[in-house]
């Protein structure tokens, strides 16, 4: 059982073996139809994946809509200078991004592992299957729809959650409007959405554990708990490790889709992350150059983190993604 990302790597590193003394031109001529098949691919990647890199230059310019990307005047590192030294918001937004991401990591990451272990213990076939299927459901819906559901049930006046809290004797909580609770709401609702789906990869890893190990453990008198601790967990540890490392490489992605559909000005102070900030200040306040600089800052760090985590995974003797 390899990591989910191993699909990316297979043989991409294996070079094609050129036949001796046949010119490259001859080789290409032999597979001209393959080249025709590659036309849409080349066009797409050139325009939509590499093309935007051309526009990144406006991070070093004062973009003017009339002048366009090329003709706009150069501004040096003005926008970066502003971002790091003068912007009243930048560090708060960076902090929010890292903190929210960190919460997702420490609370959200272990959740599916625990659930997978729990599913693994269930002995009633139909019940196990049914509960697994139900747990996958929220994964298939967008954060727009889930945002709508959460707004309804978390409402401080008519929501069900607050009705239950009040019934238990607590004061109602404005989960989506109170800066003290917003991040908590983010973490819990994201676990709610993805916990079931996240179990699949671990359950797949669990099927790879040799059943004889359990038999032997039972002979030695190990109970369920001991078996889980000494056989099951070590058996899926490599999957956990790889997914964890790759997840840390995503630390600057704090969940744009979720936050964008749940946040509001009352909680900007704790919820505004790099991505939401770039959207709002860039596209709605039209500060193209400055937010391109913010985006560039994020993307450079994210890219370095991916390279770093990939390096770590390879050092551990597992297959990386690059």
């Amino acid at each position, binding site marked *: 059982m390899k990591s989910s990302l191993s*699909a990316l790597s297979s043989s991409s590193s294996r070079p094609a073996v050129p036949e001796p003394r046949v010119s490259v031109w001859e080789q290409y001529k032999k597979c001209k139809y393959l080249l025709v098949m590659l036309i849409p691919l080349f066009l797409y990647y050139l325009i939509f994946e590499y093309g935007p890199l051309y526009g990144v230059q406006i991070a070093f310019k004062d973009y003017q809509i009339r002048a366009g990307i090329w003709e706009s005047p150069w501004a040096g590192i003005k926008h970066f200078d502003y971002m790091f030294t003068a912007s009243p918001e930048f560090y708060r937004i960076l902090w929010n991004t890292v903190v929210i991401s960190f919460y997702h990591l420490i609370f959200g990451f272990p959740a599916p592992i625990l659930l997978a272990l729990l599913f693994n213990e269930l002995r009633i076939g139909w019940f196990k299957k049914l509960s697994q299927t139900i747990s996958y*459901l929220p994964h298939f819906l967008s954060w727009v729809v889930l945002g709508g559901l959460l707004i309804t049930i978390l409402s401080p006046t008519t929501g069900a959650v607050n009705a239950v809290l009040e019934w238990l004797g607590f004061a109602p909580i404005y989960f989506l409007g109170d800066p003290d609770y917003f991040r908590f709401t983010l973490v819990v609702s994201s676990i709610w959405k993805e916990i079931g789906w996240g179990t699949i990869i671990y359950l797949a890893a669990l099927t790879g554990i040799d059943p004889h190990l359990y038999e032997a453990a039972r002979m030695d008198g190990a109970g369920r708990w001991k078996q889980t601790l000494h056989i099951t967990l070590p058996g899926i540890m490599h999957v956990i490790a790889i997914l964890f490392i790759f997840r840390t490489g995503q630390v600057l992605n704090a969940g744009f889709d979720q936050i964008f559909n749940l946040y509001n000005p009352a909680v900007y102070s704790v919820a505004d992350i790099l991505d939401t900030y770039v959207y709002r200040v860039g596209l709605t306040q039209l500060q193209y150059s400055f937010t391109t600089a913010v985006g560039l800052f994020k*993307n450079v760090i994210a890219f370095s983190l991916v390279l770093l985590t990939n390096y770590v995974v390879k050092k551990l003797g597992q297959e990386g993604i690059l």
Partner: protein
Amino acid sequence: MSWFSRMTRGEAAFQVVAVVLVTLLGVTTLYPFIHVLSVSLSSPSEAMRPGVHLWPKALTLDAYVHAVRLNGIWIGFANTIYRTVIGTLLSVFVMSLGAYALSKKHLPHRSAYTMLVVVTMFFSGGLIPMFLLMKGIGLYDTRWALIIPGLFNTFYMLIMRNFFMSIPGELEESAKMDGAGDFRVLFQLVLPLSKPILATISLWLAVHHWNEWFNGLIYIQDQSKVVLQIYLRRLIVENNDSDVQFLMEQATGSMAQIVPETIKAAVLMIGTIPILLIFPFIQKHFVKGIMLGSIKG
């Protein structure tokens, strides 16, 4: 219940705890859907009652009668279905061409091309440069803006490529002997053998298109091109319910008694029901797909 009687006391107790915990999770997962469904089917006074809603009280379909008169829903459905069908078919078509070419070991510089494709998963020009690009090449505010930017999905294409590579080379060799070219081999041999993976990837793409809202938000201005998710977002998340208010002003009799909350709940259900209906049938393909992606073929 022989499995139960064979258990020790401790194991049986553990089993009960596990079942209770998993049941709680299931209830928590389903409750928000049940709540909104109940509200959408309840009378206005019941719907506005704070608290837990497990089933509709004072059952009425008024909210749905109102909701289906919202033009935006139908425009949204039409655009969403359009992008889902066209976007999925086009993506699968061009990705299978690319994946097939990249699966051929005799393609010169194959690893370089693969690398060019793979590295794009790890960087991006960022939101603003992408937005300016879309404006610059004239895709802004066209339905193509909903389809073209995600036309290739690198991860899915590599899964396809790996699958193609797992097909025994002898099959293709013998087809080539019979004079079939690359295109014929792909369409008449490789693709028919790859139906399971094509089906899985099509489902992934279709669900993605159905749920995608961000491109619909930033690239679409024209109200006739708005997708369903954006209409839902406007009505429920942004709470911009002028459409609903307009409907309510027009209503007479019992229909005028309605509150916007029930209509919004109805709209939310109408937007969710298509996924709820097909979900039980497609989820197993998704699960299989994860395995395909994780275990090398």
